[in-house]
């Protein structure tokens, strides 16, 4: 019964999406308010059907209804209920179904926001959204069908991938990633709408920026949460490995970040409309490429789902989207032509442009590094992978250059400026750069690129703080009280500006954190017998012994390690090895003792309970916690910039007084 109902809901959503695409494009061509209204209803219907299908699946997972194909595949009676719910996105079919839910929610929200947008482009945007929706509904209905009927019905299932049961971050990371990935459909549709109608007006640009910013916030958090999860769960002591799937989420982030910056320039100067649009299209296309990379089984990675029939289907969609985008850009980009030239290079505008080029260069670097093994393999029968050295060598200079720009760009005034003005703007922050450089040297940093990151970071931090404080100082000078100055100068109308600089502060901290943690750490692999001790960094570790623990869904070997720092007892740390019924290899779970200064990271390499010996990986990772904090700061900046400014009530009233055009009542 459940499988049948589920399949029907998916089919209904497919029909609604297809119909919606047709009415949307018809509404766009005819500028018909009635068709636009029907399009919106179909979109809400799609969202509702997808929501119902997802609820049904969650219910089946919780009831252990193994007659449903997906439940038989990932469900288990042994796992706790939260794991059952999380199983929704733990494997291929469920994750695509969940994608449908997120897409439906985004489409409904964006459609609601666009309900009064001009009929020349909004229906086109909706048409593009609905084509994407129809594709994903088709994927769910066909090759990734989660509601298959299973016969004979098994008594129990294997449970989801143990790695996903191992940490609470797995509840947050995937939904966050989907909210980032799927959300990029909205700006894609808006950009396509602008291209199709040949016009990118101020309102559309603001909508584009806002709908780009929202998924950008999620994507930013998802990427770092993924790194955090890898750090806390996978046990090799790092947070980023340039795995194809990590790259898949990083590439759209790069182009989206570039687009957020160029959109600012478009808004301010009317330039780069075509370029901004291109970046938005590229961002969406990269999310689809990323989906293909994760789901096709073509790339080998910790994330890859099993081989399935879904790869070719996504490739067809990716090809169509790529060719459509290139054709659309070529056909319409000239209509969005710039209102004025960009002007000289040594201006803030010029720095925006360099920033954009660096982001695009970064994207291409990661893309080539990710795809290159496939090229080699296609030409010669040879399995290879492009390892960390390539990515590190390429990304470190680009990252430091971006940090450099993040300092210099905002320091430079808009438009042309005299050499004296430029000196006044650029020289003072050098002091902070030098101070941080000196601090690094005193702390023993010798790695050349780390020192460069510290110097640029000090410079950027200085500029960012000055820019954050500037409105306050201006208002203090006028004699305003602190509370008022802060609420008007930083929040109120200046929210977007403030949000941008807060995000900059977060990014600065992230780059410094990466530079320091990746070069200043200490790593030891030791074998300890019961009672033996080892000193690593400032810590003395004593191996107290192993114990076996039995939990409903897993068995665990837990090592007790007493940690001292000098005379001070820091407590007992308990790295463990979990063994799950469905997996032969045990899964290590490291323990991390986090302080603002550094993490002490313990991970079991091997453990012998009979002889009571322990192979232990001990790492001291400086500044890692700052990555997580800085990401929070970046996301906060994004949220600040996102919150809509309250519209002045007077203006809307006076604007809407004239007689409503025919059909307006029906449309609203």
């Amino acid at each position: 019964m459940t499988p049948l109902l589920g399949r029907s809901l998916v089919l209904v959503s497919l029909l609604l999406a297809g119909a919606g695409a047709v009415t949307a494009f018809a509404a766009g061509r005819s500028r018909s308010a009635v068709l636009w209204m029907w399009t919106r209803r179909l979109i809400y219907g799609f969202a509702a059907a997808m929501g119902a299908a997802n609820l049904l699946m969650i219910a089946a997972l919780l009831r252990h209804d193994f007659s449903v194909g997906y439940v038989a595949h990932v469900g288990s009676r042994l796992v706790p209920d939260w794991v059952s719910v999380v199983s929704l996105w733990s494997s291929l079919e469920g994750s695509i179904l969940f994608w449908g839910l997120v897409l439906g929610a985004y489409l409904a929200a964006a459609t609601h926001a666009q309900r009064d947008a001009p009929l020349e482009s909004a229906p086109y945007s909706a048409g593009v959204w609905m084509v994407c929706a129809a594709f994903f509904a088709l994927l769910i209905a066909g090759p990734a069908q989660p509601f298959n009927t299973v016969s004979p019905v098994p008594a129990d299932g294997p449970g989801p991938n143990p790695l996903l049961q191992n940490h609470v971050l797995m509840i947050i990371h995937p939904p966050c990633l989907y909210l980032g990935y799927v959300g990029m459909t909205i700006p894609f549709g808006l950009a396509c709408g602008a291209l199709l109608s040949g016009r990118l007006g101020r309102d559309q640009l603001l909508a584009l920026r806002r709908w780009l910013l929202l998924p950008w916030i999620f994507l930013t958090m998802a990427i770092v949460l993924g790194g955090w999860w890898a750090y806390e769960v996978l046990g090799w002591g790092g947070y980023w490995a340039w795995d194809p799937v990590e790259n898949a989420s990083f590439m759209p982030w790069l182009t989206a970040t570039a687009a957020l910056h160029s959109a600012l320039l478009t808004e301010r100067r009317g330039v780069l409309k075509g370029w901004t649009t291109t970046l938005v299209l590229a961002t969406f296309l990269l999310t689809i490429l990323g989906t293909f990379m994760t789901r096709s089984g073509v790339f080998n990675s910790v994330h890859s789902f099993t081989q399935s029939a879904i790869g070719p289907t996504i490739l067809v969609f990716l090809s169509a989207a790529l060719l459509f985008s290139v054709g659309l850009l070529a056909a319409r980009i000239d209509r969005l032509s710039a209102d004025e030239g960009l002007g000289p290079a040594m201006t803030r505008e010029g720095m925006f442009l360099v920033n954009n080029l660096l982001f695009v260069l970064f994207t291409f670097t990661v893309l080539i590094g990710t795809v290159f093994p496939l090229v080699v393999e296609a030409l010669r029968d040879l399995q290879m992978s492009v390892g960390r050295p390539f990515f590190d060598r390429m990304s470190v200079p680009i990252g430091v250059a971006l940090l450099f720009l993040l300092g210099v760009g905002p320091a430079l005034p808009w438009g042309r400026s005299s050499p004296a003005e430029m000196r006044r703007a650029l020289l003072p922050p050098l002091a902070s750069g030098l101070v941080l450089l000196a601090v690094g040297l005193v702390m023993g940093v010798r790695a050349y690129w780390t020192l460069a990151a510290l110097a640029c970071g000090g410079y950027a931090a200085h500029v960012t703080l000055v820019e954050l404080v500037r409105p306050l100082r201006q208002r203090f000078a006028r004699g305003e009280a602190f509370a008022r100055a802060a609420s008007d100068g930083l929040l109120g109308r200046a929210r977007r500006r403030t949000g941008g600089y807060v995000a900059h502060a977060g990014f600065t901290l992230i780059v410094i954190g990466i530079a320091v943690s990746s070069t200043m750490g200490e790593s030891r692999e030791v074998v300890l017998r019961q009672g033996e001790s080892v000193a690593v960094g400032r810590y003395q570790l004593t191996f107290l012994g192993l114990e076996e623990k039995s939990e409903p869904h897993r068995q665990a070997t837990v090592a007790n390690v007493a940690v001292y720092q000098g005379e001070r007892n820091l407590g007992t740390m308990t790295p463990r090895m979990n063994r799950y019924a469905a997996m032969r290899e045990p899964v290590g779970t490291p323990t991390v003792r986090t302080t603002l200064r550094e993490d002490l990271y313990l991970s079991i390499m091997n453990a012998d309970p009979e002889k009571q010996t322990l192979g232990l990986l001990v790492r001291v990772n400086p500044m890692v916690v700052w990555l997580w904090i800085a990401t929070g700061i970046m996301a906060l900046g994004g949220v600040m910039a996102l919150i809509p400014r309250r519209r002045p009530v007077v203006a809307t009233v006076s604007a809407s007084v004239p007689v409503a055009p025919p059909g307006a009542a029906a449309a609203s």
Partner: protein
Amino acid sequence: MNRKVLLAGALVVLPLLGVLLANIRRDPTSVRSPLVGRAAPEFTLAPVGGGAPVTLASLRGKPIVINFWATYCVPCLQEHALLQAVARATAGRVTFLGVVYDDEESKVRAFMAEEGASYPVLIDHGGRTAIAFGVAGVPETFFIDAQGRILYKHSAALDEETMRASLHKIAPALMSEAR
């Protein structure tokens, strides 16, 4: 139509699509087993439900099909009937063995009682034999010829066609006789 944009777009998009298309059939997990063409690893395993341990050496002289499986695995369920039928049809000429390395013996016994079992299932405590065979998951089926060499490894549910072709590899005489 902006030719430059079209050209630049094509230059990025077409090679990328070409590479992806050329690799679409690739399966990075199906690294060809280094064991194919070599002697199967020795083992001594006790059958589920009791009885004398089975060694590989004692089976030499006849083609062998070894199926690694588990009760919770849906593809294993799907191929179960085919394996049972072929095992019955070739009884005495091909030896069929099941191996469970990651399951509870009681569940396996209940499963065999319910679904039927026409050949012995061996239990591999600790998964040493599975490791020796390089098993990455269930189901995996190894086709071993009369001399004890692994000629083929299949890493998904078996279908009739694969079964016929694989049996042909390890027992050509049997298959031509059947035709």
